[in-house]
């Protein structure tokens, strides 16, 4: 009986499942094991590749030749919409410095990321005030190495921005611009992770009026304080839109519990932000990551969109695979210089992307979402919380998807399906082995 019991309830199997749970809790500890196991499993594919056709560089298509000019256009329009509006609000003595976002991290108010990691070090941004903006929106405050959440950071580390929904971020004096009424003055600070929005208002100058606010959507802007220091938050920076949270009473009146604030930009989608330097120190040129050549071969997974990747260097997780400036996908790094590249169309993971509309008057839009459907030729991308404002067609670029997948790599041509808040992306089918580049060293 005990023997048959052990057969029906094998301890070893349960141990393996328990190990899997520990593995999920401590992924960095087990990452080398995973890379090695999958790397070994990929070796037969590498050996088979020796007997197949050599990889070729794909002939440049019309879209690929446009790629360089499209990136320039993206940078120009991004500057025009991300930087220029801030100049009208910020003190004249400050110079804007556009910084790329490497990643957003650490869950804060509203269950959204509360920190950004920038492509510049604390040292490079030493001459900057701590305000970080995007367009005319206040994004957050630069962390200082050795202080607060950055206590263990060194000056050579990538700088961090504490978004307004970070628990250690500064509270900001603001005004809710109510319709047909005088602005409601208050303080905006981080909400709790379980709250419906990342930010909340408190200490209203007129609590009775605050309790009777019924409609959300009012703009929330910063208020100027009587402060003479240069890093004081200037008046007029946008924080977001008010969201009224409460109950409907039986008598038809509303009972307001709280006024929250939804930031204008989805913090998961932010690709570029602007720091303001009082003492110009940092170089305005953006540094690019280091690429190495890699062989890509379609992986027969039965669905398409995945390739095995063989490079001369260690492939990091999340590395962008690029051919002629066009992003073919993101790689999962394996041992022995191998990887598996998954295209945007085949990926189930969320991506941060940048939409550049064809209409030059429209600003580039940052989106965070995932592909919800694909038919092999086209893929449909749905943003999680943002509404696509740019109608018509345009080009889609990568957003900030980690230090090894920089923003601004072309993903493809796209068409907006506004009624359904979807982007239809034309995907490039890959049939044979090709030579591409993979990011091995981020900025």
């Amino acid at each position, binding site marked *: 009986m005990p023997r048959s019991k052990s057969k029906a309830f094998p301890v070893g199997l349960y141990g393996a499942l328990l190990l899997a749970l520990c593995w999920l809790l401590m992924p960095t500890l087990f990452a080398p094991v995973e890379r090695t196991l*999958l790397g070994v499993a*990929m070796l037969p594919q590498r050996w088979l590749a020796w007997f197949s056709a050599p990889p070729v560089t794909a002939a440049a298509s019309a879209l690929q030749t446009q790629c360089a000019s499209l990136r320039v256009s993206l940078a120009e329009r991004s500057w025009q919409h991300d930087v220029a509006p801030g100049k009208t609000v910020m003190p004249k003595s400050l110079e804007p410095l556009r910084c790329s976002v490497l990643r957003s991290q650490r869950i804060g108010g509203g269950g959204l990321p509360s920190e950004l990691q920038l492509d510049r070090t604390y040292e490079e941004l030493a001459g900057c005030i701590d305000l970080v903006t995007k367009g005319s929106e206040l994004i957050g405050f630069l962390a200082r190495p050795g202080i607060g959440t950055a206590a263990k950071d060194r000056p050579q580390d990538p700088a961090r921005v504490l978004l307004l929904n970070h628990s250690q971020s500064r509270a900001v004096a603001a005004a809710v611009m109510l319709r047909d009424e005088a602005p409601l003055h208050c303080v905006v600070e981080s909400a709790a992770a379980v709250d419906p929005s990342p930010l909340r208002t408190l200490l209203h100058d007129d609590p009775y009026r605050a309790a009777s606010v019924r409609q959300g959507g009012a703009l929330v802007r910063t208020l100027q304080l009587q402060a003479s220091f240069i890093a004081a938050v200037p008046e007029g920076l946008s924080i977001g839109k008010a969201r009224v949270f409460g109950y409907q009473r039986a008598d038809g009146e509303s009972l307001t519990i709280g006024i929250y604030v939804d930031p204008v930009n989805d913090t998961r989608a932010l690709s570029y932000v602007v720091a303001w330097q009082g003492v110009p120190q940092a170089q305005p040129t953006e540094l690019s990551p280091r690429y190495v050549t890699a062989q890509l071969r379609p992986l027969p997974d*039965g669905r398409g969109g995945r390739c095995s990747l063989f490079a001369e260097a260690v492939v990091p997780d999340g590395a962008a695979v690029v051919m002629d400036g066009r992003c073919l996908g993101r790689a999962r790094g394996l041992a022995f210089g191998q990887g598996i590249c998954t295209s945007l169309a085949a990926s189930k993971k969320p991506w941060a992307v940048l939409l550049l509309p064809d209409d030059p008057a429209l600003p580039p839009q940052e989106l965070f979402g995932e592909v919800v459907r694909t038919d092999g030729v086209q893929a449909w991308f749905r943003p999680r919380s943002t509404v696509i404002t740019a109608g018509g067609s345009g080009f889609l670029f990568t957003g900030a998807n980690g230090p090894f997948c920089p923003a601004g790599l072309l993903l493809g041509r796209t068409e907006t399906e506004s009624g359904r808040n979807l982007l239809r992306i034309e995907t490039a089918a890959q049939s044979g082995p090709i030579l591409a580049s993979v990011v091995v060293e981020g900025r």
Partner: protein
Amino acid sequence: MRWVLYFLLVPQLYLLAGFLREAGAPLLDVGALLCVFLALFAEPRALPGLLLGAAVGRALVDEGSLPIQLLVLGVPIAALLPLRAIFDRQQLWWQIVVAVMLAIAVPRWSYLCGQWFGEPTGSALDTSVIAATGLVGPVVLFVLRKLPPLRAFRERVA
């Protein structure tokens, strides 16, 4: 030796199934098939290692990480193991029922694991894959059970 063969060949089954799909054959859910073998025919003592090999193979064709694949395949196996004492594993109808159940359960369970652990994985239910796994799967498994490396891991019945 049997373990070397297992870890070299079994993960390639997933890619072989994809290759055959591209050649026009119906796509089999190799993960579900291996679960059938592990739940009904494999040596209980070897299950952790066999599960790891099956999970490594699934991680090659799916975006989910290896521990997710261990859970996706391991939990249905753990649920089915006690049924060995009730049903005769040689019965074809039972193998078909288990194969169909797993072809449905593995993607669904994969979806749930992906949601819980924040790692989206391939979880689309495809009726043609379920049908192929249910009808052709037991036949394929019968052949695979006679061949190395799976032959070496069959439970010996006294």
